[in-house]
C-alpha cells in the first residue's frame, strides 16, 4: 500500500474528529460573538455554544455555584530505538470532556468519552450531585477569551510522519556510539503530543488552547572492566518539529557520554549532615520539593502544610526570589491558559525573602480571596484540577560560584538528579543525586553517585546562605505527580549553598 503523506497525517492518531465528519447542524451557530478561532475548536469537538450552555445548565441544576467543561483531544506518538534500530512505534488517542461542579469548596466530577449532548447531560447530572438544592439556572452568555501564545510553532507534529522522525532517532544512536568505544547499548526515543483543549464555564468564559509537546533523548550504557554504568539524558519543549536539529542531538549525545564516564570513578561520600552546593540547572528540584509542593494552596487551606502559617513572613535571606512561571516561551511547564480557563502568570512565591504567594487553583484562590495564579492543572479531562507547579526557579543572587565553593571545608557538590519527594506536613523532602562531587577545602575532588539527600523545607530555605549569578533552566523531561495525576513541569536554579542537609553515604 502506497501511503500518501497527507492522508497518513490526518489520522495517525490525529483524527481531527471534527474534520472527518462534521454534522451540518453545527454550522448553524448564530452566536455573533464567536470568533473563527473558537468556532474551529467547537467544530473540532462537534459541539455548539448552545450545547455547552445546556450542559452547564444541567450541571448547575442541583444548586452548585460554579461549573466548568473541559474538552480535550490528545494525540500521543513515540518511536524508539533499541539494539541499533528504530524498531517500535506507539500511539494513543484520548478524547472526552470533564464536567466539574463546585459548591463552595466541595467538588462533584464526572467525565464522558462520548461528546453527544445526551452523554454530556448524563455526566453533568452526576457531577451536579455534589449539591442537593434543586435550582433553576439562569441562561448564561458566551464571553470569549483569546488565550496567550507562549508556544507558537511552525510545523505541527500531526503533519509529520514516522518516516520523517526516524532519521533523528537513528542519529542519536550513531553519535553516542561514535563518541566512546565503551558504549555497549543505546536506547533512544522521540515522543510528541498534541492536545486540543476547549473550556467553558458557568460564568460564560469560553477559551481554548493548542498544546504541543515533544521529548527526545537517550539512555547510554557503557562497560569498562565488567562495570556497567548508564545515564539518561533528554530534552523536552512545547515546540513543533522544527526544534529537531543536529545541534540538539549533538548536545544530548555529548552529555550522555560525559555523564556516564563520570560514574566509573564515582563512589559514596561519608554519611551525615554537611554543606551542600547545588549546581545551576536541575538542582531546581530543591525548590520543587522543598518549597513548591508545600506552597500548593490546597495543603495550606487545609492547614496540612508546614508553611500553612507562614504567609507574609520572612522565610529566606533577603536576596532570595523564587518564582513559579507558566509563561516561559516553549517551556515544558508553560500553558497558555490553565486547566480552569484562567490566564497564566509569573508568580513570585518568595519575594525578597518573604513568602509572597501560594500556588492557587480556583477553590483556593477563592478561599484566600486572591486572584487565581493560573496554577489549576489536571492530567487530562478524566481528572479534576488541583493547584500545581509550572516552571519553578530562583532568580540570580549576589554571589559567584567561586565564592560559594570557597566557603566549604567538607561537603558535596551536586548537579545531576533523577527524582525527589516531599512529606507536606513534616516538610521533609528528598532528592536523588545521580552524580556530583565531594568538596574538600573549597575544591571539587572525587566524584560521587547514587545518593539520596534529605532536608526539611523551611529549614533548608532558611539555610540557603549564598546564591550565585549563573541561573540555568533545566529542560529535561520533568514530570510532577500528585494525587495520582502527572503534569509536565520544569525547574531551574543558580548555584546555591545550603548550609547543611543530610547526605546518604557510608559510615566506614
Amino acid at each position: 500500500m502506497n501511503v500518501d503523506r497527507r492522508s497518513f497525517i490526518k489520522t495517525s492518531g490525529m483524527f481531527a474528529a471534527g474534520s472527518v465528519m462534521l454534522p451540518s447542524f453545527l454550522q448553524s451557530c448564530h452566536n455573533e460573538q464567536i470568533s473563527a478561532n473558537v468556532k474551529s475548536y467547537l467544530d473540532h469537538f462537534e459541539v455548539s455554544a448552545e450545547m455547552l450552555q445546556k450542559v452547564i445548565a444541567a450541571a448547575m441544576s442541583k444548586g452548585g455555584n460554579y461549573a466548568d467543561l473541559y474538552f480535550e483531544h490528545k494525540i500521543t506518538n513515540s518511536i524508539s530505538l533499541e539494539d541499533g534500530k528504530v524498531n517500535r512505534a506507539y500511539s494513543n488517542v484520548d478524547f472526552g470532556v470533564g464536567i466539574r461542579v463546585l459548591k463552595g469548596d466541595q467538588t462533584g466530577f464526572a467525565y464522558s468519552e462520548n461528546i453527544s449532548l445526551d452523554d454530556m447531560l448524563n455526566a453533568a447530572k452526576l457531577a451536579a450531585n455534589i449539591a442537593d438544592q434543586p435550582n433553576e439556572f439562569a441562561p448564561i452568555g458566551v464571553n470569549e477569551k483569546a488565550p496567550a501564545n507562549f508556544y507558537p510553532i511552525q510545523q505541527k507534529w500531526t503533519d509529520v510522519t514516522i518516516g520523517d522522525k526516524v532519521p533523528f532517532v537513528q542519529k542519536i544512536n550513531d553519535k553516542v556510539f561514535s563518541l566512546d568505544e565503551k558504549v555497549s547499548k543505546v536506547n533512544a526515543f522521540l515522543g510528541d503530543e498534541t492536545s486540543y483543549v476547549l473550556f467553558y464555564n458557568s460564568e460564560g468564559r469560553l477559551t481554548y488552547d493548542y498544546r504541543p509537546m515533544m521529548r527526545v533523548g537517550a539512555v547510554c550504557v557503557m562497560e569498562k572492566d565488567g562495570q556497567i554504568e548508564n545515564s539518561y539524558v533528554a530534552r523536552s519543549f512545547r515546540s513543533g518539529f522544527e526544534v529537531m536539529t543536529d545541534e540538539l542531538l549533538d548536545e544530548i549525545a555529548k552529555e550522555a557520554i560525559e555523564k556516564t564516564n563520570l560514574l566509573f570513578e564515582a563512589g559514596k561520600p561519608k554519611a551525615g549532615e554537611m554543606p551542600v552546593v547545588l549546581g545551576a540547572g536541575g538542582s531546581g528540584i530543591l525548590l520543587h520539593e522543598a518549597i513548591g509542593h508545600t506552597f500548593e494552596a490546597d495543603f495550606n487551606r487545609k492547614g496540612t502544610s508546614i508553611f500553612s502559617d507562614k504567609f507574609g513572613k520572612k522565610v529566606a535571606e533577603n536576596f532570595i526570589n523564587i518564582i513559579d512561571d507558566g509563561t516561559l516561551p516553549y517551556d515544558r511547564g508553560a500553558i497558555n491558559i490553565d486547566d480552569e480557563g484562567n490566564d497564566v502568570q509569573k508568580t513570585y512565591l518568595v519575594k525578597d525573602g518573604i513568602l509572597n504567594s501560594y500556588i492557587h487553583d480556583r477553590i483556593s484562590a477563592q478561599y484566600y480571596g486572591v486572584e487565581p495564579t493560573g496554577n489549576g492543572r489536571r492530567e487530562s479531562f478524566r481528572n479534576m484540577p488541583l493547584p500545581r507547579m509550572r516552571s519553578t526557579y530562583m532568580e540570580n543572587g549576589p554571589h559567584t560560584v567561586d565564592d560559594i565553593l570557597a566557603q566549604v571545608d567538607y561537603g558535596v557538590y551536586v548537579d545531576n538528579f533523577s527524582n525527589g519527594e516531599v512529606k507536606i506536613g513534616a516538610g521533609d523532602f528528598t532528592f536523588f543525586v545521580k552524580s556530583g562531587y565531594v568538596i574538600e577545602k573549597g575544591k571539587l575532588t572525587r566524584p560521587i553517585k547514587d545518593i539520596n539527600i534529605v532536608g526539611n523545607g523551611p529549614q533548608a530555605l532558611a539555610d540557603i546562605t549564598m546564591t550565585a549569578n549563573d541561573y540555568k533552566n533545566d529542560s529535561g523531561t520533568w514530570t510532577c505527580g500528585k494525587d495520582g495525576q502527572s503534569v509536565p513541569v520544569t525547574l531551574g536554579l543558580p548555584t546555591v549553598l545550603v548550609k547543611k542537609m543530610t547526605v546518604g553515604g557510608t559510615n566506614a
Partner: protein
Amino acid sequence: MNKEEKYNLAKWAMNHALENGAQQASVTIANSVSSSVEVREQKIDKLEQAIQSGLSIRLFVDGRYSAHSTSRLKKEELAHFIEEAIAGTRFLSEDEFRTLPEPELYYKGGGANLELLDKDFDKVDPQKKIKLAFDAESEVFGKDDRLISVSAGYYDNKNERVMVTSNGFEGDSSNSVFGVYTSVSVKGGDARPEAGWNESAIQYANLKKEGSGSIALEKALSKIGQQKIQSGTMPMIVENRQVGRIFGPLINALSGSEIQQKNSFLINKLGEKVASEKLTLTDDPFIVGGRGSRLFDGEGLATQKRTVFDKGVLKTYYIDTYYGKKLEMEPTSGSTTNLVFETGDKDLQGLIASVDKGILVTGFNGGNSNGSSGDFSYGIEGFLIEDGKITKPVAEMNITGNMKQLWSSIGEVGNDVNQNSSWRTPSILFENIDFSGL
C-alpha cells in the same frame, strides 16, 4: 459494552488489521466503572464517577512492530486509525524478534475460578458508599486536640477486558476492588505529621469497613516529635506494607528487558545464590481471591506457579516472548502475579523485641536504586528501637547501600503478611544498614 460485544469488536478490529496489511495482530478491549467519594469536615469534599473504555492493538507488519491505543471506539474511526497505524509501521526498521507467542504456550480455557470479581458490584447502594466515608472520618473527627485535618474516602472500581490474537488466543478477565481510607494531619511543634491507612477487598462483603480512621490517627500521633539521630550502622526492620519499595528493584532486576539491555545487577545469575538463605519466594498466580491472581498474562501466556528464590538461589527470570527470543530463553511471563514469601516465626512486635539498637522503617521518602549496579539510597522515617522497644520517632534520614548486599543480610523474615497487595510482603529485619542522620 458486554463481553460478547467486546469480543465482536476486538475480532472485527483484528480482522481489519489482517485485511489491511498486518500479518499478525493482537487486540485488547477493556472497560472500567469507578466511583469515589471523599469527606472532609463532615461534608462531602469530592464526588467522582467514571466509565472508561479503550482499545489497544499490537501490529506485526512485514517484520515490523508497533502498538496503539484509543478511546474512540466507533468502527469507522477505528478502521481509519488501524489503517494509518499499519502505514506508519512500515517506516520502521525490521525486528526479527517480534512475533506473537507460540500458540502452545497460550492459556486455552478452564482453570479454577479465582474469584476476582464481586458479582454484585453494581448493587452496592451509593448512599452506603458515602456513609462509609463519613463513618471513617467520624472515627477521628473531634477526637484529639492536636488534629488539623482529616480526610476519609471510599472508592471502588470494576475492570473487564477481552483479548484476541490472530494465532488463536481468546481470553477474558474481570476484577473488582473496594476500598476505604483515612488520612490525618496533626500538629506537633512546627511540624504537621500526617499518616494514612487504607483497607481494600475484592468482595464488598469482605471489606474491613471500620478502623482505618483510628489506625491513621494513632500513626499520625506517634510521629509527633520526629527527629534525626546520629548516623551509624545498625539493624533495620522494614514494616510489611513498606517492603515493596526495597523489594521492587530486586524484582526489576529479573526482568527480561532489563537483563537484555544490561540494566540489571542479576545478569547471568540463574541457579546462583544471590540472596540470604532466608529468602524463599514463590510466584503463585492461582491463589483464590489473590490480588495478583490470573490465568493468563498480558500476552495470553498461561500462567504457572514458579519458585523465584529458593533459600537465596535465583530460580527464574521474568521473560516475555520478545526478550525471550532476544536472550534465547524460554518465555516465562513478563510480569509478577502474587509474590509469596516463606515466613518466619515472629510478628512485627517479635522482630522489634529481638533488636538491641536499630531502626524500624515505617515510611520511605524518595530515593532510588541504580538498575545496573543495585546501589541504592532512600529517605526514611520510622522509630528508634532500643533494648527491644520503640523509644522515639525518627525522620529526615537516609539509608544507603547495595541491593545484593541488602538482600544477603536478612536477619529474619516476619510472619505478618500484608494481604492487601499482590506482593504479599511480611515485615523483614536486615542487618548492618548504613543510616545517615546527624
